[in-house]
């Protein structure tokens, strides 16, 4: 035993979604959802979150399921692990982009534990915020700890913790949405609209709501896609950037394109400007570099430990060029 001990807590392991909602209503924001635990448990150990009630959702059968329908598309339950997603034949056949993104998350053990929905709902990361209770005794609290400063952007007026989910860019490019269940029933929310851009509360989910699944439209033929993650030490580290591109090329120019980026600022980015620019154009070197320039203009990369803003910008640019080249092969 050492000072990494978890705080005292109450453990709930409901069998149904209704039970989850009831527990959430009773204890309000004193609850936290436990699926893979790979994000929540370290945060609890470091006292980054304080809550008395942990709700395990792994025993809720419907949340453990992956289902696929040619009309409806793919539905991945909130307790499905990244490994289960990667191993699923429908994903490797029909959604290779997702397969690649899932394989880029952290490492083996984390993928066996962590869930896809967990990766979507992963809290924004910050060199400062994600420190131990002891560490925080040495300085005033930041925005994310209910204080009134940001250490990432000195003088910043809000929290600039980084949006970190490695799968998010791929899911946005695939036009995924979330099924969120609350006291008023199930609601669908496009994934792109799920993120607030405020590092302190990065996702639109109130304490009564539960993300039960991620939904991905059926694959349409004619699209090509690709995914890239760059980080200091392979998948193990949080990304310098993750980039997903889907496109349809009719030989003379692009008919359609989706570009999404994550890991670079406080929310994922759908690069609509670059998309618009590329429409109808052939993919020559000049077009690609201009698109990369527009893409950079749509992002405001943050620095993080080991990665300067400059490195992040140059990396995004190079990733974009390399990925387009790989897709066009």
């Amino acid at each position, binding site marked *: 035993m050492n000072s990494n001990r978890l705080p005292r*807590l109450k453990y709930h392991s409901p069998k149904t979604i209704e039970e989850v909602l009831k527990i959430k209503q009773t204890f309000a924001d004193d609850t936290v959802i436990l699926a893979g635990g*790979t994000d929540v*448990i370290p945060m609890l150990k470091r006292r980054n979150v304080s809550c008395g009630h942990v709700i395990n959702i792994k025993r809720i059968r419907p949340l453990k399921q992956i289902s696929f329908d040619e009309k409806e598309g793919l539905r991945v339950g909130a307790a499905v692990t990244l490994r289960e997603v990667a191993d699923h034949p429908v994903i490797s056949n029909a959604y290779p982009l997702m397969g690649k993104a899932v394989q880029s998350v952290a490492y*083996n053990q*984390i993928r066996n534990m962590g869930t896809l929905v967990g990766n979507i709902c992963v809290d924004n990361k910050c060199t400062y915020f994600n420190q131990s209770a002891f560490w925080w005794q040495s300085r005033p609290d930041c925005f994310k700890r209910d204080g009134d400063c940001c250490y990432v952007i000195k003088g910043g007026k809000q929290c600039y913790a980084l949006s970190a989910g490695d799968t998010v860019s791929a899911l946005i490019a695939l036009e995924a949405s979330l099924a969120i269940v609350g006291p008023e029933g199930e609601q669908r929310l496009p994934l792109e609209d799920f993120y607030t851009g405020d590092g302190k509360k990065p996702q639109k989910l109130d304490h009564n709501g539960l993300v039960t699944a991620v939904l991905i439209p059926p694959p349409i033929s004619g699209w090509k896609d690709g995914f890239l993650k760059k980080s200091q030490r392979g*998948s193990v580290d949080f990304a310098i950037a993750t980039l997903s591109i889907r496109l349809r090329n009719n030989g003379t120019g692009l008919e359609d394109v989706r570009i999404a980026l994550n890991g670079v600022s406080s929310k994922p980015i759908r690069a609509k400007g670059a998309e618009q620019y590329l429409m109808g154009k052939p993919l020559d070197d000049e077009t690609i570099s201009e698109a990369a320039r527009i893409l950079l203009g749509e992002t405001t990369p943050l620095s993080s430990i080991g990665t300067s803003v400059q490195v992040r910008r140059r990396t995004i640019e190079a990733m974009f060029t390399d990925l387009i080249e790989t897709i066009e092969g």
Partner: protein
Amino acid sequence: MEKELLELTVNGEVQEVAVKPNDTLLEVVRDNLGLIGTKEACGVGECGACTVLMEGRPVLSCLTLALDATEQEVTTIEGLSTGEDLDPIQESFIQYGAVQCGFCTPGMILTAKELLGRDKNPDEAEIREAISGNLCRCTGYAKIVEAVQAVK
């Protein structure tokens, strides 16, 4: 704080243990069951030393609540081979000099064991990717990779 009685299946044996809700599986296998082969080197899921197999898959016991481990097959390093016997991968780690201080070894072996279970002949890149979450500070991983590759 009240302890709860929990049924755990560890290394094929069903055991009843009294745990607190904030006990991790790591703490329970080490302190309650005396299975000290599972190591804690970081406690926050960044090194792989506490790796155990759950339903045959490598997971981090430091990030697993003990209460979450019920109704699942848990295998620790002690369950990989019985008595004086060794699993071929353990033998290979010895013969190829893959063990130095030994602190990462149990987690490393369990991670590699699962890889070999799903892929009899992994190439070097696959081995390195599979164990990339298991930090080792002594070996530079070279002899570990050799040892895994040598298992037939």
